[in-house]
Every structure is written in structure tokens, then in C-alpha cells.
């Protein structure tokens, strides 16, 4: 018997195929160098945008992952917009707004003539339908729910005028109205179930959803007759581009290669190793630090290890932030100096609490009763100092960053296991508490993000015990005076970090690379993008 001839050939071919698939994805540099003045915008064309992950949903109110926000942001308009330079709130769908003295009731006046792409008018009734529905959303809707926390009712004062009332002061609500999370959907979409909305949404934005294939692509088409863009945008009327084609390409090397070969026009989430080749190929790198909570570790304090303050503090002293940032992230990234990143309003640096000090980490653990074991890992009462960090695959830098953190912590006698989970499962993991420590960040251009994440009166994902932090967080949410609010937010950051409720490591910096012939891609205040003004230069 000799049935092995073809089999060995198959084995050789399979070996070669593994090598090829594994190593495929390099590309030739084909695009020409960026020209000087771009000239007048040219209408038409399709912009192909490669992103790394898919949140499994196209409903702006239920999406929290930047990769998917890039596309769904274009589907909806918001009541207001926020100036990325000044943080000032400016008109968009709402022409004007006022609040009562303690910021518990907000009255908006809408601009006339706005319609959804299904033809229904965008009026006060439609906004009411949206806001009434938000509190009923599931865990995917945590963002808009937190913006509307304490929501009581929306009363329609006239066809284009309405008042939103809250149970208590809600200062952050105004910034919330500028985000994609409170983007206005058609009343029919708002009434549909959570899952139906994830597959199909109708908004009033400059683009409409053409098709969505999960884990493959999100295709948008220009909305004809669009004439109600934000006051911050450059031109009036319809968008320049005819179509937006968002491709999901998980490999950062393949994304970079696709841009270099001209197969796509823009890519998200570039790795540090791709910076130089992309620039050499003439691509433009657009970077902006994300406001909100910086990338870091937060412990589940319902677990024994997470509840031990010595462990949390030692972890913070044992992490060498500058080393992580320089080894893993793009050159524009900065080490975290507080729980909030430096582009967030009211960011207060806490450098004294966030240094790297191996000796201090060791003495904190010694004092906490954790003695070094034979293999270098510390233990207390027979329990090894080992925990698992859960992370999502939504940024290519997550795994290398955590591997380096793991190495740094091991030097301090702390053992860490890493567990990667799909980004689509993250909300469920947070809700259920099935984690020991999470590697996470949260983008929001308002310091109230601290309250929504860490207040024990809300979702309290990290199971913090109630304490003085709650009062500070509630206080800033009610502080109508900007100076008072800034002071309270500063105290809250200090309180949170001196308890080591969170261990910030690096500020997420969104770095997009766009081809030399693409112009007008602009960041909003939350470091997400608007593609209304974007256009492609024809060759």
C-alpha cells in the first residue's frame, strides 16, 4: 500500500499556503507623494475606508466602538455640534437652546425643513420618540442612557420646540446632544427592537445606509437633497462624495498595504511600524488624542483581588508608562497623566500618583502581606498574586501593550493572564461582571464620563464601593458654574487615582492614514470623523 504520494504533496502545499496566508498583505508603494494645494473640492466618487473591527451593529445609539462610529456617525445628525478646538457647543439641528437655573430642564428649538431619508419630518415629536426610547435600550445603549440619566420626559411645546426634563441637574446633557449616541433616528426606527435597529436604521444624516454585511462591510450612499449640515462644516448642501465603503480588515498590516497600493483611500488604527512606510508612500497621517478616559486597567472590585487596595496600588507603581507608550503606540501618543486624557475639558494631571517606582510597588505588596514566592510570584495565605486581564481586539496596539504590561508586572511579582474577547461581547462582559480586570478606554469630550463610568449609583461596571467619589461626581454633574465644575472634576480625578480604582496607562490617540488624493476628512471634538466635507481628487 502506498497512498502517501499525493498526501505528502498536499502537506507541502498546505505548509506553503500557511506561510503565504500568514505573510500575505505586504503591498507595493504606489501612491504618489502628496501635492501642495488641493484646489477646489471635486464632487462624486467613492471613498473606501478600511477599519479593523465590526461592533455587530449599525445603530448609532447602540455603538460604542470607534471603528464602527466612523461609519454610523455619517447616518445621523445631532441636535448640536462641538467645536474640536474650543469645546464650545454650536447649532446643528437645533437653532437655539436654553436651560433653567439648575440645568434640570432644557428647551430646544429645531431648524425647519429637515426630513429623514424615509420622508418623515424631523420635528419635536420625532426627537421625543427618540429620547423616550433611549432608557429602554439594552446594555449596548449604555452611552446614550448615561447622557439621559435622570430623564423624566420630553414635552412638545410646538412643532419645532420641545423641553427635556430631568429629575435633577444634568449639565453634561448638552455635550451629550452633540454626540452620535444621541443622533436622531426616524420615529419608525426608534420604535423598532434593539436587534432590528442594529441591522437597519433610518436617519437624517448626509449619508444613508445602503448595505450592512456583518464583519465584512458597511456601505453608505449620499443623501440627495441634504441641506442641514452642522454650523461647523465647511460647505452647505449635499456631501461631496457619492458613496462611502467601509471595509472591515482586521489585520493592521493588510490595511496599511491596502492604502499603500491604492486599494483603499483611508485606514483607521495604524500601528507604529506602519508610520514610516505610509509616509514614504505619500499618505497623510491625521492624529488626535481621544478625549475621555485614557486606556488603562480597571479591576472588578467585587473579586477578592480587585478589592485589595495593595494590589491595585502596586500594579500602578509597577507599570512603566513611558516604556509602554514608546514601544507599542504611534509616535503621537502620550503616557496617561490622569484618568482623563489631556484633550478632555477639565483634565487635571496627577503625575505624583502615576509614576513608575518598582521599590514602592514592592513595599506596598510587602505591607499588604504579599510575600515573594519561590518562582518570584508573590502569594498571601497560599493564594498566588495572579489575575486575568480581559481585553478586546478593537485596537492593534492592545495585545502588545498588555504583553509589555504583563512583563512589567511579572518583574514586580504579579502574574497576569491575558484573555482576548470579541468587541461585540464587551458590553455583556461588563454587565455580567465576568472579569477580574478590564483593559478599556472610553471616548467622550466631557468630564462627566467619570460619573457614567465610576459612580456607584449607575451601572457601576467595576463594582466600586460607595464613597466620597460619588458626591464629587454628582456635584460636578449639577455644577452650572464652569469654575466650580472644573474644581470638582479635578478632585474626583485625584480621589479616583489615590484609591487606584483605575490604573490609566496611555492616552488613546486616533491616528488615521488617508491617501494623498483625499481631502477634507475632519475630526470632531470626540476624535471621531465627519466625512461630509471629504472629497477625492481625480487623477
Amino acid at each position, binding site marked *: 500500500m502506498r497512498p*502517501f504520494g499525493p498526501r505528502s504533496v498536499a502537506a507541502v502545499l498546505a505548509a506553503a499556503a500557511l*506561510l503565504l496566508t500568514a*505573510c500575505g498583505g505586504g503591498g507595493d508603494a504606489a501612491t504618489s507623494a502628496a501635492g501642495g494645494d488641493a484646489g477646489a473640492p471635486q464632487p462624486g466618487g467613492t471613498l473606501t475606508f478600511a477599519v479593523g473591527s465590526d461592533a455587530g451593529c449599525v445603530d448609532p445609539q447602540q455603538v460604542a466602538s470607534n471603528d464602527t462610529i466612523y461609519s454610523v456617525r455619517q447616518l445621523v445628525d445631532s441636535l448640536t455640534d462641538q467645536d474640536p478646538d474650543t469645546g464650545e457647543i454650536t447649532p446643528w439641528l437645533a437653532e437655539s437652546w436654553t436651560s433653567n437655573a439648575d440645568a434640570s430642564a432644557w428647551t430646544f428649538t429645531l431648524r425647519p425643513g429637515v426630513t429623514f431619508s424615509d420622508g418623515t419630518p424631523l420635528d419635536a415629536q420625532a426627537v421625543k420618540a427618540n429620547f423616550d426610547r433611549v432608557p429602554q435600550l439594552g446594555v449596548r445603549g449604555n452611552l446614550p442612557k448615561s447622557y439621559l440619566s435622570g430623564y423624566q420626559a420630553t414635552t412638545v411645546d410646538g412643532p419645532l420646540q420641545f423641553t427635556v426634563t430631568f429629575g435633577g441637574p444634568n449639565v453634561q446633557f448638552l455635550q451629550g446632544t452633540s454626540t452620535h449616541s444621541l443622533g436622531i433616528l426616524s420615529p419608525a426606527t426608534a420604535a423598532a427592537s434593539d436587534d432590528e435597529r442594529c441591522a437597519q436604521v433610518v436617519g437624517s444624516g448626509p449619508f444613508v445606509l445602503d448595505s450592512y454585511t456583518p464583519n465584512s462591510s458597511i456601505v453608505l450612499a449620499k443623501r440627495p437633497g441634504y441641506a442641514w449640515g452642522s454650523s461647523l462644516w465647511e460647505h452647505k448642501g449635499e456631501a461631496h462624495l457619492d458613496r462611502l465603503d467601509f471595509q472591515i480588515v482586521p489585520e493592521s498590516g493588510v490595511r496599511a498595504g491596502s492604502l499603500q497600493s491604492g486599494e483603499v483611500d483611508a485606514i483607521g488604527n495604524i500601528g507604529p*511600524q506602519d508610520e514610516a512606510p505610509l509616509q514614504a508612500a505619500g499618505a497623510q497621517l491625521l492624529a488626535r488624542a481621544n478625549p475621555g478616559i485614557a486606556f488603562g486597567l480597571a479591576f472588578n472590585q467585587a473579586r477578592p483581588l480587585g478589592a485589595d487596595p495593595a494590589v491595585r496600588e502596586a500594579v500602578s507603581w509597577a507599570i512603566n508608562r513611558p516604556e509602554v507608550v*514608546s*514601544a507599542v503606540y504611534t509616535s503621537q501618543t502620550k503616557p496617561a497623566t490622569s484618568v482623563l486624557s489631556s484633550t478632555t475639558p477639565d483634565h487635571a494631571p496627577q503625575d505624583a500618583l502615576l509614576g513608575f517606582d518598582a521599590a514602592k510597588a514592592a513595599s506596598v505588596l510587602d505591607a499588604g502581606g504579599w510575600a515573594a514566592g519561590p518562582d518570584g510570584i508573590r502569594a498571601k495565605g497560599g493564594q498566588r498574586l495572579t489575575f486575568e486581564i480581559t481585553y478586546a481586539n478593537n485596537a492593534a496596539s492592545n495585545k502588545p501593550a498588555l504583553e509589555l504590561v504583563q512583563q512589567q508586572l511579572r518583574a514586580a511579582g504579579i502574574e497576569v493572564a491575558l484573555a482576548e474577547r470579541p468587541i461585540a461581547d464587551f458590553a455583556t462582559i461588563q454587565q455580567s461582571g465576568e472579569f477580574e480586570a478590564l483593559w478599556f478606554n472610553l471616548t467622550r469630550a466631557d468630564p462627566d464620563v467619570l460619573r457614567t463610568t465610576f459612580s456607584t449609583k449607575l451601572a457601576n461596571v467595576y463594582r466600586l464601593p460607595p464613597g466620597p467619589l460619588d458626591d464629587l461626581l454628582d456635584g460636578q454633574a449639577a455644577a452650572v458654574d464652569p469654575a466650580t465644575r472644573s474644581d470638582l472634576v479635578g478632585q474626583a480625578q485625584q480621589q479616583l487615582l489615590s484609591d487606584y480604582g483605575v490604573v490609566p496607562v496611555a492616552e488613546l490617540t486616533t491616528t488615521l492614514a488617508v491617501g494623498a488624493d483625499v481631502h477634507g476628512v475632519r475630526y470632531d471634538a470626540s476624535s471621531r470623523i465627519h466625512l461630509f466635507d471629504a472629497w477625492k481628487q481625480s487623477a
Partner: protein
Amino acid sequence: MTELLIHETAARPTTATVSPTREPRAVRLRRAGRFALTRPGLVLSSLVVVLVVVSAFAPGLLAPADPLLGVPADKLQAPSAAHWFGTDYLGRDLYTRVVHGAALSLQATVIAVAVALVLGGLIGLLAGFVGRWVDEALMRFVDVLLAIPPLLLSLALITALGYGTLNIALAVGVASASSFARVMRSETMRVRRSTYVEAARSVGTRWWVSLARHVLPNAARPVLVLAVLEFGLAVLAVSSLSFLGYGVPPPAPEWGGLVAEGRNYLATSWWVCTMPGLTIAATVLAVNRISRALDGEWGRSR
């Protein structure tokens, strides 16, 4: 007495095919030397396999450094005298990681082949020996297994079992059991009809005794050769699955995982992905070459 007699008869065909005459020691040595000299590929393959086995059992001998400890300042350095395979994105020495990863990859492979051999062998033996409806039922089951692409079947099993090296090994083992079952069945059917087995049955040997004593030893040889060949394929299957992220969690240096880690750096640092990839390829090819030699090349070489 009768049993003893049958045993002798049973043993004869095997000994006859393997070494009909004993050669003097010197002649055999000279022949072995000539055999090796004319086959440099086989010698090289054996060397590769020896190195891989040493890496698996005593990685410290070949690479004394710590595979998990990186020096970020030395990241992404090209292969050099200091770092034979270069360094990865955290400044970890790739050669050290590949050597230390051999144990993980090989462990999974050995378990996978063992599972496939035992499971497939038993199914084949039972089907071939009992025949009739048992044969029909088992072979239709094997047909189903063969109809599903092995990698897809492994993926489905892992989804059910969960991640990890052992689960990968089980999944690959179950997915490749069907080919063992087929070969074992055909060999069993051949041996079952031979005179000495029929004689044993006719004098009243119980069926399980004749199965264990007469059928299994004579039918197992081709299956064992197949196991060596499957070893190469299993290295590949295990690596593919850990490439896809189903293996041990980072930072453990499994071969497939190493290739996966390097894929984002291919345009700028080719060695991060190429060196572990070449190691996998070399191992698979070496094992293939050796299994070809085992499949009678020595006997034919005369």
C-alpha cells in the same frame, strides 16, 4: 498446544516481509552509511527532527534566555549574531521564543496524533473485524467526518470545547481520526480473511483473543507509518489553529501564534513572521521525508 502452533503460523508472514535474512553487522553498517550518503535530504530531515525534539524537552540547552522577557529598546532588530532570528515588537529574542515554543506545539501535536491513532484505529479495527451492520454504521459515520474539511471540523470542535492547547490537540485528533479508521479497516479486513485467523477461529479461539493476538499486530503496521505522516500534518493543523488565535493565550510562544504576531510587521520587519513560519515548514517537510523513508525505502534500497 494448538494455540501455540497457530501463534507460530500467525507470526510467520510478518517476519517474512520485514527481514527475510539476517545480514552480518559490518554489511549492515556499510549499507546504512551508503543509504545515508545517497540521501542528504533524509539526514538533514533527521537532524531537524532531533533539534525540534531537543527543543521540546530541553529548550534551555539550545536557548538559555527567557522567552517571555523583552527589552523594548531592542525591538524589531533584524537577524544578527546576537539575535539569530531577530527580535519581535517587544524586543524578545525570536530564536528563544521559537525554541521554547516547540514544547507547546509538539505536545499538542503528539496528543492529536495519539487521539487520532487510538480513536481511528479502534473504529477501523471494529468495523473491519466485525463487519456487517457494525461496519456499515461506523463507515457511514467516518464518511460524514471525511465529508467535512478537517480544519472546519476542528474549528467547530474548539468552539464547543473552548480555547487552549489541549482542546486544539483533541480537535485536530478527532478531525484526522477518519483516515486512520479507513486504513485500519482495510488492513483488518485483509488480515481477518487470512488462513491463520480462520484457523484460530475454527479451533475455538474467542473472537477478542484472536482480534488482539492475530489481527491487531498484523494490521497495525501501515497505520503506524500513517501516524508518522499525520504527525507532519498535525503540526500544521495545530499551528493553523493557534495562528487563528485558538491556542494558548499570549505571551506563550506557540509556533502558529508567533506567525500570527508577526503578520502586522511583514512590510517592515519580515523576520518576525518568516522565521517561525520557516521553522514550521522545515518541521513538516522533515517529518514527511522521514515517513517516506519508513514506508519501505530501506527495504527497496538494496
